[in-house]
């Protein structure tokens, strides 16, 4: 099996899986309990918060654990709303931000979508045009889940603070955290979303990093867990597993980045003769490569590769239930390039041999489909 769909989800680290299993069996105590073993779990969770904040260089922030990054993004958009203030959302957002924005429009909020450049990054001129004193929240993805395009969040944040001093800046960092260096404080980010299962941690846990000066409305009412903002018994074992995976990835960040970048470069070299269109800029995230081939439907390619136990995707899994690729359209791609999209995403477990074998299979499949001439007539 060759698994090149790590932007969709990753294989949990063995030691993390073992730890989560052991912890769930031995330290299963409800952190809200008043006895010592429960307090111990609370202490572990609080240590986890501090570790994650440190990895993110978030100095004036707290961290709120959620059940997913989708939940954290929903929280970011729905619980920090300022009265009569406009919301700006980039056209390149993950569907959990994009659809929440659409929901807010249906509820009477003023939401504007900021354009993308054809390299997949945010159009800063368009952002600047749309920023004014009435903007209350700006949401922009850090690394695009579709193309790997890296947004210059520091410049975006500067623009936001300059033109809309009261605006909160939210950044969805799911594809950035532990994949590229992240410095939340230095970039002036108020809210930052991260996810566990994208970094070899367990499913079912995400988090929102929140500037301590902000006072959101609660998302879920109940027992008052997570600072009273998100009630529900903490998924303590998964939270600790998340942190453990993050720690390992942070420690190996540089070498991992170099490794996946090598794989990406090698793959691009190997498939040059197929004349792929690379969607997104050359400076995209080292682990994500978005490609289109002339006259080739991405979905067919995925299924052909699947026959050889090679797993890639046509883009965000969270979009696979919708037709078309909204982000590629926003980048000005034509219909063929949009439907032809193939997303390859690496992780530290992948090898050069896999890339070579993949490149070979991909070439065969692309040639076969191009030979079928499905689209040209």
């Amino acid at each position, binding site marked *: 099996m060759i698994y090149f769909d790590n932007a969709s989800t990753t294989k949990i680290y063995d030691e993390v899986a073992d730890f989560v299993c052991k912890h769930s069996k031995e330290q299963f105590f409800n952190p809200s309990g008043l006895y010592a073993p429960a307090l111990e779990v609370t202490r572990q969770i609080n240590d986890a918060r501090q570790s994650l904040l440190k990895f993110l260089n978030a100095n004036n922030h707290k961290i709120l654990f959620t059940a997913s990054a989708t939940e954290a993004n929903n929280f970011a958009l729905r619980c920090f709303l300022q009265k009569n203030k406009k919301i700006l959302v980039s056209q390149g957002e993950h569907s959990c931000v994009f659809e929440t924005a659409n929901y807010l429009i249906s509820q009477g909020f003023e939401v504007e979508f900021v354009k993308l450049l054809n390299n997949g990054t945010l159009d800063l001129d368009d952002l600047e045009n749309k920023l004014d004193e009435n903007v209350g929240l700006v949401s922009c993805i850090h690394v695009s889940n579709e193309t790997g395009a890296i947004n210059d969040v520091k410049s975006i944040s500067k623009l936001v603070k300059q033109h809309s001093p009261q605006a909160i800046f939210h950044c969805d960092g799911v594809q950035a955290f532990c994949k590229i260096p992240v410095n939340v404080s230095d970039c002036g980010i108020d809210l930052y979303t991260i996810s566990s299962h994208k970094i070899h941690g367990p499913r079912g846990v995400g988090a929102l990093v929140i500037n301590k000066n902000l006072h959101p409305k609660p998302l879920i009412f109940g027992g008052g867990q997570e600072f009273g903002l998100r009630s529900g018994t903490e998924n303590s074992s998964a939270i600790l597993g998340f942190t453990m995976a993050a720690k390992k990835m942070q420690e190996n960040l540089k070498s991992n980045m170099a490794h996946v970048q090598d794989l990406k470069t090698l793959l691009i070299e190997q498939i040059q003769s197929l004349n792929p269109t690379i969607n997104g800029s050359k400076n995209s995230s080292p682990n994500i490569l978005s490609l289109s081939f002339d006259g080739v439907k991405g979905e067919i390619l995925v299924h052909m590769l699947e026959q050889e136990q090679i797993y890639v995707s046509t883009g965000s899994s969270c979009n696979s239930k919708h037709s078309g690729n909204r982000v590629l359209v926003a980048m000005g791609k034509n219909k063929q390039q949009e439907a032809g999209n193939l997303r390859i995403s690496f992780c530290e477990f992948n090898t050069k041999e896999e890339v070579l074998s993949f490149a070979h299979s991909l070439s065969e499949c692309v040639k076969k489909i191009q030979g079928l*001439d499905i689209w040209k007539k």
Partner: protein
Amino acid sequence: MEKVILLRFGEIFLKGDNRGFFENMLFTNVQKAIKEFDCKLKKIAGRYAVENYNEQDEQAIIQKLTKVFGLYSLSVARKVKTDIDEIVNLCAKLELTQKTFKVEVRRADKRFPIKSTEFAAICGEKILMTNKNIKVDVHNPETIVNIDIREDGWTYMFSDIILCAGGMPVGTSGKGLLLLSGGIDSPVAGYFMGKRGMSVECLHFHSFPYTSEQAKDKVIRLAKQMQNYIPHLKLHILSFTKVQEEINRNCDRDYMIILMRRIMMRVAEKLCKKIGAGAILTGESLGQVASQTLESITATNSVVTLPVFRPLVGFDKLETIDIAKKIGTYEISIEPYEDCCTVFLPKRPVTKPKIENVLEQEAKLNIDKLVQDCLESEEVVLI
């Protein structure tokens, strides 16, 4: 007093000497439909009754029964011994919510000593004593209290009549093979043939990797949904990939659809012979798409000798959609997974194919081998 569900037959009433065959098949189908419930199915003169069921299962049982072809209607009834006092006592206990009512007595058991109209008056009086705010209206009552005095010594009292699916018991009109694509039409076509008593097996052409596993899964779920109406539905899945690739490689692309369909029909006929089916069933509707013009249907029909039933041939799309919604297949059918016909779609499909041109295209293919290979790729899914 016991609650029972009375079941009335549909068209079986028109049958003559062979009526027993139809009744037995219906009995078996009803039994299958409610086998998950703890209850007893009984034959009583001219109808069936579900007895000894748990009160909390009543609605679920009714739901199942309304989908059994061959049943015309059903009623939840109270069953008492045929005894004047018992019946009258039961009337006295009835609580009606309507404003007007009438009582109708049917005296199948002529040994019952009071005439129907007289007994209706007696029972009506009792009901009026319990229900102070209700009046008798013999012409236009809001509800009718039916009192059915049967020959077997039991009397059944009911008011609501729930319509069932009608038609003929599945299994009484031979077997058909339905071409099930994943779209809206074919499950509805299967439904209609089931309604005429036909046993249905389904054939789906899968085109992996040009279509996805999800497309296949969708068809399996469609077949499962159809099974609510058609017991013992079997699904045959054949790989059509090679056929499409060969046509694409060798033939004029504008003939893709007509060539595909002619091969599908040939495959279907062979499969029919293997499984003992006597007809091919399709969801075609005249003129709906290029492959469903009279000329196209003629061209696809001409490769088989078995009858091809197209129950939707005169249906508007909206009429089909209404039924698809009613039988619960619509929501599955509109899921966005492509079926095998949409991948190799030509820009300008031939709408009025000339048979000599089609034959010229087919001469470029080894049809017999393609049909055989396709049949050999069979995967049977028991739903």
